[in-house]
Structures are given as structure tokens and as C-alpha cells.
């Protein structure tokens, strides 16, 4: 039996494969938090996660209100019990997703959490790395120019793993 304290985490590589506002924020918060703790951090945006780093989309990410069974967490904001499911049919009404998105952005601002574009810049300025997946870029016919400036490089999966040497990998 050894009772040595475990080694602290020194490096994290986060893979963000989804592009909903509620799916992108966790990746940003985890990466920024890692930098704040003095760890190395990178985020690899792939598949629909590319939305978060596209110039045209970075300010337009949405919270999905259809097919999102976890939206019950938003019910208390409407003075309803948290155990009540968010009615799917309501989620399909035009504007409801925008409303949910607006509400989440509002709450985030209250918590001093920046919008996605500002957050990406903040992580990049802090020495964190923002990468885009080459395969997904090819699939969606995107060019490096379509991406925000805080994206450091477009990488193949192999290159991403190479840069992740010694890191804990987190998939979001």
C-alpha cells in the first residue's frame, strides 16, 4: 500500500464535438479553468462543435429546446417545479429556442462568464490552444478563413494526439 498523494493534473485536452450553446460552454469553462490553475489546456473543435469557432456562427449558438430532456432545469425560471419536463411541443414553437438561449446568455453574463467569441479570445490570450479538426472542416467544406482568429491551427486527429502528449483527454 502506498499513500502517496496523486500527481496533480498538468495538462488537459478537451474535445468539443457539439455546437449547442449549452454544449460549448462546458468546454470553454473547463479549458479556461485549467489555465487559471496553471495547467496547459487545449480545445479541439470537431463535427458540430465547429459551429463554436465559425465567424458566422460564434455569436449565434443556440440552446436546443426540442429533444433536450434536460431542459427541466430551466423550469424554475418559469416558476415551475424543477422536476417538470419541458414540454417538447412548446420547444418547437418559433422563438422558444431563442428565448432559452437569451435566458442562458443572461444567466452567464450575471455569473461574469463572457460570450463565446470573447471566451475563446480569453483562453487564447491565457496561453490555451484552440484547434479545429481537419476532417470535420473538409466534411463541412470550411476553410481556415471561416474560423475566428483565436483558432491557432487546423489539425488532423493524429496531430491532435501528438500535441496532447501527457494530457488528460476530456470529451464533451
Amino acid at each position: 500500500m502506498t499513500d502517496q498523494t496523486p500527481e496533480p493534473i498538468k495538462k488537459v485536452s478537451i474535445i468539443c464535438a457539439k455546437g449547442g450553446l449549452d454544449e460549448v460552454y462546458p468546454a470553454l469553462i473547463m479549458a479556461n479553468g485549467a489555465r487559471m490553475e496553471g495547467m496547459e489546456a487545449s480545445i479541439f473543435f470537431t463535427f458540430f462543435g465547429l459551429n463554436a469557432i465559425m465567424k458566422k456562427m460564434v455569436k449565434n449558438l443556440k440552446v436546443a429546446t426540442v429533444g433536450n430532456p434536460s431542459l427541466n432545469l430551466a423550469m424554475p425560471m418559469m416558476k415551475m417545479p424543477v422536476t417538470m419536463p419541458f414540454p417538447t411541443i412548446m420547444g418547437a414553437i418559433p422563438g422558444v429556442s431563442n428565448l432559452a438561449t437569451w435566458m442562458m446568455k443572461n444567466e452567464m453574463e450575471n455569473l461574469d462568464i463572457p460570450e463565446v467569441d470573447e471566451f475563446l479570445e480569453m483562453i487564447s490570450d491565457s496561453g490555451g490552444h484552440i484547434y479545429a479538426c481537419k476532417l470535420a472542416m473538409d466534411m463541412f467544406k470550411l476553410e481556415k478563413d471561416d474560423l475566428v482568429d483565436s483558432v491557432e491551427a487546423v489539425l488532423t486527429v493524429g496531430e491532435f494526439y501528438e500535441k496532447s502528449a501527457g494530457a488528460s483527454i476530456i470529451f464533451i
Partner: protein
Amino acid sequence: MASREIAGVTVEFDDDNFMADHTAWNEAIAAELANEEGIETLTDRHIEIVQYFRNEFESIGTAPSIRKLNKSGVVPTKELYQLFPGGPAKKAARIAGLKKPQGCV
């Protein structure tokens, strides 16, 4: 809680090794704390930021976020990370004699 001598005075530290009472702080203590954090010399720029941390703490009860430091023009994020390498918000708060910051961003 533990007391120890630093910069010629006895100072009390909490369990996180942050100063228990920020009013007991002075620049000599700050210089010692900076050394403990691996910052050899506390420059005027460091002091300026540390002072801002203290003023913010006194007016709103909490250390400023990195975002606020950037947005309010006190110090750009890049420079902050260069001045306090390896965890700027925590390090600057500790050198400023404040409690450990509680926020996630």
C-alpha cells in the same frame, strides 16, 4: 489556521495558505508572498495590479475576475498570465493578502 513570521511580522494564514486578515498586509509581506509563488521581484506593475485587487476586494468583497481586469483596462489577459505565471487570479489574490478566489472563471 497557522501563524508564521513573514517580513518581520507574525501573520496568520488560513488553511489554503492565504492571509487570514487582509488588513495585516503590507508591501514587504507582498514581496515575500510573491517569492513563495515563484515571482522573484515584485515590479511596480505587479504592485499596481495587486493594489487593484485590494481595492476591488474592499469595495465589492471579492477579488476581480480575469475578465474584469481585461475589460476594465487594468491589465490585458496575456500580460496578466505573464506577470503571474501558473494561475494568475489565485497568485495575485494571495500576494494581495486576500482570500482564495471562489469563482470558476
